[in-house]
């Protein structure tokens, strides 16, 4: 058994490709080209679709005109039908409804008395006894489900009687439903009730509309009179249809109570178009009539329904909108100024009342600013254009209305009238809405159009004054948060520092609450994201102090942002910045609750700190950097991934020292020692293995042979433990990884000088013996390891090794043991052990095909490292037989293997 002699240099020159020198790098484009590319990028204006104003405003306008045309023929399918439906859906979800609802006696009759419907006598007495309401005060409790079911029943009954030509009953039942809306004692249920009831109103309206249209288009005997165009003229409607139509209005106008009368007229409101062409007057009358409903909740929702019905008209004037808002103002002014008593039938408190009314205000404002062409007109008519001083102290706007107005006002309008609007907000400090939130809303709106803001200084000055007057820190922060972007954008450094100092001062006197934390977080993030240079941010007076007051997730989020931004730069070399960022990173590390946090958050924090460590650069002061790494290890000891980074960094440091420093041996020693201490702290053995190998390499290159030996020992130790501890969850991939590492170890061994005391082949032998003890190693993996061991010993046997360590004091085995008999003997014993092992292991592979392949692999390996003499050829033929029995004679791999072995062997080979 003899190893083949190899001439690596000759082989390299034979196998390597011929090289041609080139003048330029093929992957690098010419420098002039790249700069022009960059310019192009600069010219492309970034369009943010979420902020696109001019575009977005135009779109709904188009929609509207299309929808309007459609609406004339069918009042149900207008633009807002969808919007209305979705708004209603939200409305029902917005207010949690208790299971049991208190209901006034009168409406409980409608709800409970399902049998009364069949008896007209009862109905009449019901209608006559209007004054009953006066005598029977008091409330009954009905379950919500019962109430809703009853409404659905009523709807069905209305539809049924309509279709059986009993339209009078339909109308009477609809009036009953409308009457339910008079009862606001249901409180939170009122919005839901409204949605259900108006659904019935809409249904009735549609049925009446259809019926009258039918009459207008077709005569009694079914002959067609005319086909009504979408924008028909009332003159074209035949008398018969007009008569029917006005009868409906007559019937409805005879309803005694105001609220049901309004609702019913609104339900069939589009039908006015059959009678005359100026329906706007009627609409205005209804707006005025709603004033007669004193209950604020009932009147608000009634206006809401009016707006909905008005949108069914093809050409609608906007006068009613303005009047609605003005009336709403009067009502709210009254609520705001009244003492906490009762409001109409409403029993809840003022806050609940306003919150129940709020959706209607929201919808109204949306209607007001729906048409972008009319925005300017609307602003004038709402009286916004007036000099704010005129109504100073008169409470011109109710804050809740103002809030929704601000929300709907186009950004450019807000931006160009910032000061005026600020005054409006200032003047409306009533209890219907938190004034702070109005300041905030204004701020957010201004930020939306930040470049168009007029009189920025005046605005910010005013806002800061307003905020400073606020006693509560929470309000102070809430207001300023919204204006932060403007302060930053317009570089108002003076304001910025005064804000920060004010915040800090206030923070010192208070315990920070969650809400405040959220605002602080937002402010801090704005600062962090605005400035590119974190040094500047961290140097801002009080910024770090404010950061220190923060805690919990808010703090972590800010920390993460700071680190993200800081590591965006190429390197961090300023010592104070490093120190500050180190503190930031440490606080981030400390805030992560390791056992319980979600893996993702944890990893993100770790990644950020790793990036930070990576970017820190102490230049030539390598010692300082090592000290920094030591500090990091101490500070971030809970992050295992980070320790790996530290080991890598320290190795990098050592390598740099090797290259740069003359007197480096001690420094490299400290780096290696640092690693020797750090690596065992990492729980994963496979990770340790990688790092041990890396460090061993570095120390070998540094000439520290004893360190490298120790590290290799540790590596072998890892290899032994790897499966025991990393254990059960190992997948094939990990096993593959470990095998690769073992192979890497083998190739590294070539560089390491052998040690007589331990035996030259001490480490390869340990690997070999390890194989048996590792039960997870499949035959396939073992063969791979064995092949590399074989390769290692074959290479060791050469007179000249293919590569050497680049250190003058490190001698490789080829120099140490050249021609040494003991050395060759040891190699021979190792290789024969490996050989035996191979032959023994292959049959253990359970899969036949795999077994065959393994046999061939081993055979190839053996044939390429050994001279094929008798002993070897018998081993080879044994393996080939094994392969034949598994794969069959025709297998291509088998054939090529046989060919290869034949070529190698001077004597005949094979079974024959």
């Amino acid at each position: 058994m003899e190893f083949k002699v190899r001439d690596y240099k000759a082989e390299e020159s034979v196998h390597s490709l011929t090289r041609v020198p080139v003048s330029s790098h093929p992957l690098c484009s010419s420098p002039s080209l790249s700069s022009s590319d960059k310019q192009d990028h600069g010219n492309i204006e970034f369009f943010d679709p979420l902020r696109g104003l001019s575009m977005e405003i135009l779109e709904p306008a188009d929609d509207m005109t299309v929808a309007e045309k459609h609406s004339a023929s069918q009042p149900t399918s207008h633009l807002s039908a969808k919007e209305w439906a979705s708004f209603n859906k939200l409305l029902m979800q917005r207010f949690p409804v208790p299971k049991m609802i208190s209901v006034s006696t009168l409406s409980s009759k409608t709800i409970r008395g399902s049998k009364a419907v069949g008896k007209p006598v009862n109905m009449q007495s019901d209608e006559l006894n209007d004054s009953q309401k006066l005598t029977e005060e008091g409330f009954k409790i009905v379950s919500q489900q019962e109430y809703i079911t009853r409404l659905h029943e009523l709807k069905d009954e209305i539809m049924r009687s309509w279709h059986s030509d009993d339209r009078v009953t339909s109308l009477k039942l609809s009036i009953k439903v409308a009457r339910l809306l008079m009862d606001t004692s249901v409180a939170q249920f009122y919005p839901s009730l409204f949605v259900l009831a108006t659904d019935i109103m809409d249904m009735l309206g549609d049925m009446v509309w259809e019926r009258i249209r039918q009459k207008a288009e077709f005569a009694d005997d079914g002959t067609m009179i005319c086909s009504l165009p979408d924008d028909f003229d009332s003159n074209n409607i035949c008398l018969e249809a007009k008569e029917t139509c006005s009868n409906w209005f007559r019937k409805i106008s005879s309803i005694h109570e105001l609220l049901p009368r309004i609702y019913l007229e609104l339900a069939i409101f589009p039908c006015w178009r059959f009678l005359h062409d100026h329906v706007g007057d009627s609409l205005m009358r209804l707006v005025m009539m709603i004033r007669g409903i004193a209950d604020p909740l009932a009147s608000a929702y009634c206006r809401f329904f009016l707006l909905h019905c008005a949108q069914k008209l093809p050409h609608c004037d906007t006068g009613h909108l303005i009047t609605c808002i003005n009336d709403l103002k009067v009502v709210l002014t009254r609520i705001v100024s009244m003492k906490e008593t009762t409001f109409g039938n409403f029993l809840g408190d003022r806050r609940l009342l306003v919150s129940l009314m709020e959706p209607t205000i929201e919808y109204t404002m949306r209607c007001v600013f729906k048409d972008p062409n009319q925005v300017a007109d609307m602003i004038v008519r709402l009286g916004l254009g007036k000099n704010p001083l005129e109504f100073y102290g008169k409470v011109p706007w109710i804050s809740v209305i103002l809030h929704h107005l601000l929300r709907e006002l186009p950004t450019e309008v807000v931006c160009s009238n910032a000061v005026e609007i600020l005054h409006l907000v200032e003047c409306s400090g009533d209890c219907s809405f938190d004034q702070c939130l109005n300041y905030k809303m204004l701020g957010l709106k201004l930020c939306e159009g930040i470049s168009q803001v007029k009189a920025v200084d005046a605005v910010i000055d005013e806002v800061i004054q307003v905020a400073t007057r606020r006693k509560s820190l929470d309000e102070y922060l809430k207001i300023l948060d919204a204006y932060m972007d403007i302060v930053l954008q317009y570089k108002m450094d003076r304001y910025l520092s005064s804000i920060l100092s004010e915040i800090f001062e206030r923070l010192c006197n208070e315990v920070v609450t969650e809400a405040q934390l959220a605002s602080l977080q937002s402010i801090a993030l704005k600062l962090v994201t605005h400035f590119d240079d974190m040094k500047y941010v961290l140097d801002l007076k009080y910024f770090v102090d404010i950061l220190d007051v923060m805690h919990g997730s808010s703090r972590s989020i800010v920390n993460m942002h700071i680190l993200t931004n800081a590591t965006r730069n190429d390197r961090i070399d300023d010592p104070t910045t490093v120190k500050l960022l180190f503190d930031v990173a440490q606080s981030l590390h400390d805030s992560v609750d390791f056992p319980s946090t979600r893996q993702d958050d944890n990893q993100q924090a770790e990644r950020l700190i790793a990036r930070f460590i990576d970017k820190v650069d102490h230049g030539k002061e390598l010692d300082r950097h090592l000290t920094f790494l030591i500090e990091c290890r101490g500070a971030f000891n809970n992050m295992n991934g980070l320790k790996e980074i530290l080991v890598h960094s320290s190795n990098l440091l050592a390598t740099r020292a090797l290259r740069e420093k003359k007197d480096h041996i001690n420094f490299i020693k400290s780096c290696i020692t640092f690693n020797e201490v750090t690596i065992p702290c990492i729980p994963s053995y496979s990770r340790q293995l990688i790092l041990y190998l890396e460090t061993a390499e570095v120390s070998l290159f540094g000439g520290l042979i004893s360190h490298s030996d120790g590290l290799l020992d540790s590596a072998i130790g890892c290899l032994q433990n790897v499966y025991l501890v990393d254990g059960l969850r190992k997948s094939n991939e990990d096993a593959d990884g470990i095998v690769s590492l073992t192979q890497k170890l083998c190739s590294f061994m070539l560089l390491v000088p052998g040690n007589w005391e331990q035996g030259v082949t001490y480490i390869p032998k340990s690997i070999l013996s390890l194989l048996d003890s590792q039960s997870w190693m499949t035959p396939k993996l073992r063969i791979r390891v064995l092949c590399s061991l074989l390769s290692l010993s074959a290479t060791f046997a050469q007179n000249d090794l293919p590569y050497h360590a680049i250190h003058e004091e490190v001698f490789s085995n080829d120099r140490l043991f050249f021609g040494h008999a003991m050395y060759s003997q040891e190699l021979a014993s190792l290789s024969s052990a490996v050989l035996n092992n191979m032959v023994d292991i292959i049959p253990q592979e359970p899969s036949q095909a795999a077994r065959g392949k393994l046999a061939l692999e081993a055979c190839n390996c053996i044939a390429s490292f050994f001279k094929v003499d008798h002993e070897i050829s018998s081993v080879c033929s044994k393996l080939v037989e094994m392969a034949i029995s598994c794969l069959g004679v025709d297998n291509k791999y088998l054939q090529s293997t046989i060919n290869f072995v034949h070529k190698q062997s001077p004597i005949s080979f094979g079974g024959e």
Partner: protein
Amino acid sequence: MSVEIKLSRSNRTYRPDEPLQGNIITKLPASISHRGIQLTVNGSVNLQVRGGSAGLIESLYGVLKPIPIVKKSIEVQPSGKIGAGTTQIPFSVILKNQGEEHKFYETFHGANISIQYLLNVDVVRGYLHKALSATVEFIIESDLASLPEKPVSPEMVFFYITQDTQRHSLLTELKSGGFKISGRICTQCLLSDPLVGELTVEASAVPIYSIDIHLLRIESIMVGEKIATETSIIQTTQIADGDVCRTMSLPIYVVLPRLLTCPTVFAGPFSIEFKVTIIVTFQTELYNVQPKSDPRAFRKWVAMESLPLELVQSN
């Protein structure tokens, strides 16, 4: 076997100088012979005095003799036969002959006075057979020619309701707290138009419960030497529900119910007039205590203002 009258207009409304047109429709299982088809137009004012408002003796009269307005008979077809199945026989009746100076009052259904026009058809058959007949009411509106000139602008009357304008006693808190409700309302109104106006609660110390508009009719009948008058509510319309905001103008808008209203009439033996009353009800505990009573009774928590209303036919 039936006969019915279908008038040419679905609202059955005619003016006296217009021909009353339509079809007589017979539905017969087999053809019958008849002795002529007769149409009769009958219009009259029916008067009735109920006890209470008139004296005891007058009440004995009970129903007074109706005042005839028109009575006309025409033969649509002479004796003949009507075939089986559905047959339509058109007709046209002239209600008012040219030059005739006869007053056609407008149709009105009141409590004591009712002015009614009926069209009757008789298919007279032999002795052994019952005549087939049917009756419909048709509605008369005044002649265009006889209408007074349309009021150029509807006459608006201003009103004030305060604690001092009330002729009945008020609750002390109403008296002391005071209230002022002002407004204006049309007192001359076309029948086809709604009664309009506006109203503002300027002040009220006691919260308002409701504001209603009562439309009333005043029917007067000459009984012998005396005039029996009765006022009754036709329709109540609420215009304010609850304690409405002060100084906000509320519209008054009342659509006049058909048949229950007609142009104001002053005839010799009877007259029909109208009145509008604004009723302001204040919130009080007394509602629950007091039994329900006549709505016209003057209650202590109610303030009101009545205004005469002249109704005019439109063209």
